[in-house]
């Protein structure tokens, strides 16, 4: 069966390391070699000190829940079977924010500040998507 949800942008070279780490079940962020600032999404220069030297770094996958929504309308055909589905916003323990989904069914209890942990779902042979479970 063909995968009908949006895939990562193939021409977004900056993000390639993130998806490669994800295939190995590692969550990663970009870390500045000069000032140590950790950021996500990636940037061609460090938004903090403008350094051009940056490295992708695996992170713990742990974070806290900042917010969440439930889609009752799908904007991509591939999400119609999932309706209603959730997206969440997580602050990683290392600092940056990331939008993702909860793994599995909607958690029974949601609250701002709950601890969460990344898990990895293999969506296709080449594409693994990080999601979060409430701890």
């Amino acid at each position, binding site marked *: 069966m063909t995968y009908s*949800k*949006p*895939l*990562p*942008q193939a021409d*977004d070279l900056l*993000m390639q390391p993130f998806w490669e780490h994800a295939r190995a079940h590692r969550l990663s962020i970009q870390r500045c070699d000069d000032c140590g600032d950790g950021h*996500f*999404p990636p940037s061609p220069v460090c*938004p903090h000190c403008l350094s051009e030297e940056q490295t992708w770094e695996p992170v713990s996958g742990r974070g806290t829940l*900042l*917010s*969440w*929504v*439930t*889609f*009752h*309308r*799908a*904007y*991509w055909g591939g*999400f119609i079977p*999932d309706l*209603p*589905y959730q*997206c969440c*916003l997580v602050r990683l323990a290392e600092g*940056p*924010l*990331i*939008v*993702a*989904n909860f793994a599995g069914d909607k958690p029974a209890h949601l*609250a*701002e500040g709950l601890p969460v942990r990344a898990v990895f779902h293999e969506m296709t042979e080449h*594409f693994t*998507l990080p*999601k979060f479970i409430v701890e």
Partner: protein
Amino acid sequence: MAIVKSLSKVAAVIGIGESDYVGDHARVRAGERPHDSYGYAAIAFNKALKDAGIERDDIDGLIVGPTIAYERMGELLGINPTWGSQADAMLSVIEACMAIQTGMAEVVALVYGNDQRSAAIQYGGPEAMGGNMFLSYIYHAPWGFTSQGALYAMMFQRFMALTGCTEAQLGEVAVAQRLHASLNPHALMKKLITIEDYMASRYICEPLHLFDYCLINDGGVALIITSADYAKRNAKKKPVLIHGVGRYDANKGATSLEPRLLDFYRPAQERCAEQMFNMAGLGPKDIDAVQIYDSFSCHVPLALEGYGYCATGDVGRFMAEEGISLKGKLPVNTGGGHLSETYMQGWNHQVEAVRQVRGEGLGRQVENCRFVHYNSDVAGKAVSIIYGS
């Protein structure tokens, strides 16, 4: 931060024009395409010119909205200006003031047209307009987080969690604006709704309901802005002066939604408010009505707190108990706004502000309306304008 004072009362709006939102919407829904974006803009321009009581050849500055090509619009209107620009509603008003203050132009036409409904423009999903410019769509697409509404839903969910504001309190926005639209002959959605209707309406991206989302319709808007001096000498109607403007942008961390989700744009709005109120020599207590860019209803509570109309954390109670309708303490979006009047991406709010200051608000006129504040927080740009007599 430099406190800019030099744009206060430099310029005035002397002409306003709009396309026939109601008639055109009926035609579009019947499958017709009455005009394209240029056509809507041209019709609005003609009305604004007539409203101002000046000739086309008096115009020496031209600003066109982001949905139309600058050169083509100038060609269609037969205008070779000494100065021109392309900008959204709020920035074009500020740019017009700057051009007038510096002498680059004296009589500036601002024109906007959008055939978004008949051309089936998408604001979410794979064909999302501007998606490649607002990266938050693209980065979050693999997780299905792909619409403008979702960004605001995520923000408002957190706002509720932190402040105790409720969905029913947010419903005050849609209910008040529908009341205003019912009194506005230009408005598309005139059927009154109650908080019960709002709560019973379906979710689109929960916690936001259908009534929290703006309309999608075709139309055009034009304004004629000129120097205060020229306005005094030539305008057919009482000029509406621009008393103050402000702007502060929150770009840092935008794609990961930090300015919205962590700060609710508050620092940007506070700095914008400081600049604008200082420039105008006014404060929130002097403002008789507020127009707020409302692609989604939740812009309203954030702005009411951010610009100092109520205490931080108190906006839910303020909206429900003190009131934001014509019957309440602070009338907001008196024409019905994007939710119920017309979705002209902020342009219709400028027209409504001018009408209220002129006293042309008909059944929705705010009594003794001297100052109207417009503000928007689109994509992290906090922009503000005070119109007054």
